């Protein structure tokens, strides 16, 4: 098949993204079980960070390779005037690459729309207010359903039903608010968006969902730890709040881009047990790990720049692309 210059670039980019994402995704899939076991030995926040990084690794590697190497090498070393025949395999891989991106973008858009619709509906069914001492907006929903969740991306709102307000004591409500505030400060809804946007390793197959579920669990635990902040009384109040909300029955299904106080009953027992242990876990100081993360990012950027500046690297990549193309 003979394709024009830019379509060939698009096909090559999708094809190389698919191959790299598949390779890295399979590696991550093999490593996911030992990684989850290892994460259980760490603090909940570092475990959540580790699992999120592992889940996003295929996207980051494949994306960096395509944007940092494939596209520049093609633009600099491929003569624009030539019309070349593209191999069948390259076209198929390109289509598969486009399909995994299409699927991830479609589910992301769907989730964003569902979240917007749900928030609008809650605002219609309730009233927007602010709770004293809390900076973020609260929507008080006139409903008896067990609803207490942080919803939205750019301006997250706390959705609270009157039923929940009625059931929780003042201390329990304060602990629940601290839990949701912890989700807000760690931008868990934005992380959920990244998880949605990370393409599958094969169209419509999600073998890395195990990592996503584990990340979700550790993110809840991390928010619990932050809410309790090493205070046994507060931990007790949060545990009581969880049980009281659970007693209210099953709540309305929330969009993926929201973090409810009680995501499901699978983890309820473990969460309550953690909160009731003799010395509640204080949240780890994140400045050290943030520095480490920044250092790693800086090192990666330097390496990438060094590779980009080396002409031999780009020509090697171009040869590889030629191989893939034909």
């Amino acid at each position: 098949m003979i394709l024009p210059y830019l379509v060939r670039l698009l096909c090559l980019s999708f094809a190389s993204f698919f191959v790299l994402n598949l390779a890295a995704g399979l590696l991550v899939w093999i490593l996911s079980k030992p990684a989850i076991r290892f994460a259980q030995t760490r603090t909940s926040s570092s475990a959540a960070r580790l699992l999120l990084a592992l889940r996003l690794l295929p996207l980051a590697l494949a994306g960096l390779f395509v944007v940092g190497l494939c596209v520049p090498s093609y633009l600099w070393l491929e003569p624009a005037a030539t019309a070349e025949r593209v191999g069948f395999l390259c076209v198929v891989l390109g289509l598969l690459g486009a399909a995994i991106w299409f699927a991830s973008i479609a589910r992301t858009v769907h989730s964003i729309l569902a979240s917007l619709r749900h928030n609008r509906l809650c605002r219609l069914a309730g009233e927007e207010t602010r709770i004293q001492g809390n900076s973020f907006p609260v929507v008080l929903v006139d409903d008896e359903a067990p609803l207490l969740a942080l919803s939205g991306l750019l301006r997250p709102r706390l959705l609270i039903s009157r039923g929940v307000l009625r059931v929780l004591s003042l201390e329990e409500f304060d602990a629940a608010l601290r839990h949701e505030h912890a989700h807000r400060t760690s931008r868990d809804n934005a992380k959920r968006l990244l998880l949605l946007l990370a393409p599958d390793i094969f169209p419509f197959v999600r073998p890395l969902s195990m990592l996503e579920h584990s990340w979700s669990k550790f993110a809840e635990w991390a928010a619990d730890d932050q809410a309790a902040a090493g205070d046994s009384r507060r931990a007790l109040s949060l545990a009581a709040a969880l049980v009281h909300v659970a007693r209210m029955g099953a709540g309305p299904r929330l969009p993926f881009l929201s973090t409810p106080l009680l995501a499901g009953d699978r983890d309820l027992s473990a969460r309550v047990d953690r909160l009731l242990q003799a010395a509640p876990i204080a949240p780890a100081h994140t400045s050290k790990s943030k520095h480490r993360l920044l250092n790693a990012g800086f090192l990666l950027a330097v390496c990438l720049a060094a590779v980009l500046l080396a002409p031999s690297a780009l020509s090697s990549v171009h040869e590889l692309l030629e191989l893939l193309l034909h």
Partner: protein
Amino acid sequence: MIRFLKNRIQRGVNQSQSLALGTLEFELMEILWSNGASNVRDVVPKLSRPLAYTTVMTTLDRLFKKGFLDRHKSDRAFVYSSSFSRREWERRRAGSLVAGFLSGPNPSRELLLSCLLDAVGEHDATLLDELEKKIRTRRKELHRQEQP
């Protein structure tokens, strides 16, 4: 014949599509519900504001096409009558609203259902009892620790 069939098909489609009425449409329906079958000339003086004969004629024709009205020709003019009573319209409208809500996206459907129905899939009551017992025990422990 073709026009008749087209109207029938159009009526069926429109009826399922929408039972909503505009302000003028609703006023015309009110007049027909209270006065029974009428032609355009009978309807115009009963309106709350003066409107052109052609405007009323067009709106009545639109209501016929939407399936709200039936009509027959009498002395070179159409006589319109409502296809269903006001109560029937209200019942259908409420039904279509609920159906629209239920066939809508999950959150809206479930928010409504959460208001209408008892929640299903509740948490295991035994587990919750056990957890509450643990909380009570822990509360007592803390209370003892805090006492001098």
